[in-house]
């Protein structure tokens, strides 16, 4: 049988991208375009159905706006708040809705077209006004128009996606990825985005094969083309030949067998040949993943990204809703630990605020945003405390960069504890509170920060982005997003050395832990607790059980002295070869 290398060498119908989530899948292209709002004036036959779709889209738009509004109210000036209110009122505007309904019935066109045309009329009137402020108002209306249209189209998309579909898109937001994954999509391919884009992270956690950053796949395929997505090597084959189809079908079946084989590791500890025990935790994005966590044999949940709840609900969950979610997760995982990270909103994760920050990654995100929205923050803390009576929950704060932030967060947590005591509600009074080390400033201050908290956890996605000053989602510079840059490796060494204080746990929850190449290095540096997507845990366990700790220490010491990323990668690859350990991508 040919090798992957040969197959790809001979293939003229391939596109290369970045292997974002492992697996092989063969299916039909579903083109998902949404970067530009494009409406079609398609004919409709069923007026009642169109009307119902319109009302559902308006309802969903209201829900979304409510979320934005609830959140932004405290922060905005009165005039900005009034614009939000006006947008809400537009969704209830009886004259507008009635006109749209009538036109759909008379003209028999898709609701999205009528909505576009009708609201655009008002915008044109505004644009022709002599008053500059009315001209600007046309832009405020643009948002509400697009929101309704988007929601109408989403309904149309969903109805066209089958369990056969591979979604091909320019780029995917976390919300899209979640929405689509719920429609049983088989795979994802995108033009843009890197290994750590949220689309990639979610695909990995849901075990859906994905290739991202192909630059132009959307231009190369048509709707219903057959494609093969190879999430191990980062290739997509368009309209495969018979030979290719046979090859990949066999590989696919082999992979299924292999995954079964990995199950044997489930109940075995992740321990090196010379007896060093490594704890493997799971990163959890969506609540549906918990079954995967349990079958993976994880030691617990090292990172529960709660901001995904917002994506799933498209609304801020109440205290009670959160208590229910957290209690459920902590009971399912008991007696293992559940690490809940406070809402890490901002940056690319959720654009809740109406006003644009010129540099959102350096702006109001993580703990900074939580301090600005004390109601949101306290609601979550209270929910975490209420759910903590099993004593297997710990709480983690994102984006910490100063000691003052740690102290302030602790004092807010104490306030919440005092409230619950007064209300006679039981909770874990010794709930461990830790911080993410993901801002370079925190990395530098690891020792003092670690002394102040119960545990620390290294988040490499942001740490690398801030250390290298590179936007991981921007493919123009994503080459500089180097996991194995000597600057990164030395920083990781600094953190583990400074943070090793008796009684305090240091864990590692960045996506880097999911890169099998990094595992010997991280262990050699001294990390004993790694958190990763549940689907990668068996692979990591397999590698760890082949490692000799003494040798990884030597390897790490050599890597720390390197000056180029290339030298480090070469050393790591040589290490795998010398010790006869095959990495995932080579075993299928």
């Amino acid at each position: 049988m040919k090798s992957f290398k040969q197959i790809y060498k001979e293939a003229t119908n391939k596109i290369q991208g970045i292997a974002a989530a492992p697996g092989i899948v063969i299916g039909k292209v579903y083109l998902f375009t949404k970067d530009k709002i494009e409406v079609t004036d398609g004919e409709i036959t069923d007026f009642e159905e169109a009307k119902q779709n319109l009302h559902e889209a308006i309802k969903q738009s209201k829900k979304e706006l409510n979320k934005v509004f609830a959140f932004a109210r405290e922060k905005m000036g009165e005039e900005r708040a009034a614009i939000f209110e006006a947008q809400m009122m537009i969704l209830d505007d009886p004259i507008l809705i009635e006109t749209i309904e009538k036109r759909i019935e008379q003209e028999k066109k898709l609701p999205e077209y009528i909505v576009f045309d009708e609201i655009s009329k008002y915008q044109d009137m505004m644009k022709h006004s002599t008053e500059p402020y009315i001209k600007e108002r046309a832009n405020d209306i643009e948002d509400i128009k697009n929101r309704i249209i988007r929601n109408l189209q989403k309904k149309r998309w969903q109805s066209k996606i089958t369990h056969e579909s591979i979604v091909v898109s320019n780029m995917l937001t976390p919300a899209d990825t979640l929405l689509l994954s719920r429609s049983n999509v088989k795979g994802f391919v995108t033009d843009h985005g890197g290994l750590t884009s949220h689309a990639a992270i979610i695909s990995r956690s849901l075990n859906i094969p994905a290739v991202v950053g192909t630059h132009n796949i959307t231009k190369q395929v048509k709707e219903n083309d057959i494609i093969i997505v190879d999430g191990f090597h980062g290739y997509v084959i368009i309209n495969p030949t018979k030979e290719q189809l046979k090859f990949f079908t066999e590989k696919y079946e082999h992979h299924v067998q292999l995954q079964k084989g990995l199950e044997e590791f489930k109940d075995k500890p992740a321990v090196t040949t010379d007896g060093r025990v490594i704890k493997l935790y799971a990163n959890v994005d969506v609540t549906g993943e918990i079954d995967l966590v349990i079958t993976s044999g994880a030691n617990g949940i090292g990172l529960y990204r709660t901001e995904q709840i917002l994506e799933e609900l498209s609304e801020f969950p109440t205290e009670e809703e959160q208590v229910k979610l957290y209690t459920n997760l902590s009971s399912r995982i008991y007696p293992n630990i559940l690490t809940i990270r406070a809402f890490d909103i901002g940056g690319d994760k959720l654009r809740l605020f109406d006003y644009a920050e010129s540099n959102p990654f350096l702006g109001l995100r993580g703990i900074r945003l939580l301090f600005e929205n004390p109601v949101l923050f306290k609601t979550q803390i209270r929910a975490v405390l209420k759910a903590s009576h099993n004593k297997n929950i710990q709480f983690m704060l994102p984006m910490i960069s100063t000691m003052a932030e740690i102290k302030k967060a602790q004092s807010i947590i104490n306030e919440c504890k005092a409230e619950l005591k007064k209300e006679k509600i039981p909770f874990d009074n010794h709930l461990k509170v830790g911080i993410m080390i993901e801002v370079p400033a925190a990395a530098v201050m690891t020792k003092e920060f670690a002394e102040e908290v119960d545990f620390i956890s290294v988040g490499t996605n942001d740490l690398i982005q801030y250390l290298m000053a590179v936007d991981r989602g921007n493919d123009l510079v994503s080459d500089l997003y180097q996991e194995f840059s000597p600057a990164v490796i030395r920083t990781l060494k600094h953190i583990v050395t400074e943070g090793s204080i008796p009684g305090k746990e240091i864990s590692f929850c960045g996506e880097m832990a999911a890169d099998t190449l990094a595992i010997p290095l991280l262990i050699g540096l001294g990390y004993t607790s790694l958190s990763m997507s549940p689907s990668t845990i068996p692979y990591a366990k397999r590698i760890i059980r082949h490692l000799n700790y003494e040798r990884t220490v030597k390897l790490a010491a050599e890597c720390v002295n390197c000056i180029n990323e290339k030298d480090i990668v070469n050393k790591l690859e040589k290490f795998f070869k010398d010790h006869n350990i095959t990495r995932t991508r080579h075993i299928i």
Partner: protein
Amino acid sequence: MIETKVEIKNKAGLHTRPAATIVKLASKYKCDFYLTKDGLHINGKSIIGVMTLAAEMGSEITLTFDGPDEKEAAEEIVDFFNRGFDEP
């Protein structure tokens, strides 16, 4: 039917906040309510409509009320205009 002319008295003119208030007041009543200015004839119960109306300080708008409770509606809405939308 009641028809009456009102003048915009506040500095900022008929901006989004008073526009929203006018529509909210109008929706309490059964009668039809229209605003007319510069040839534009706008249904006063439609926020998107009222938002298209440019009216700076000193400009005049014609209000018409038509229906069973037109008197009460006119009273409340005209008063809101005359108070300069409770703004400076």
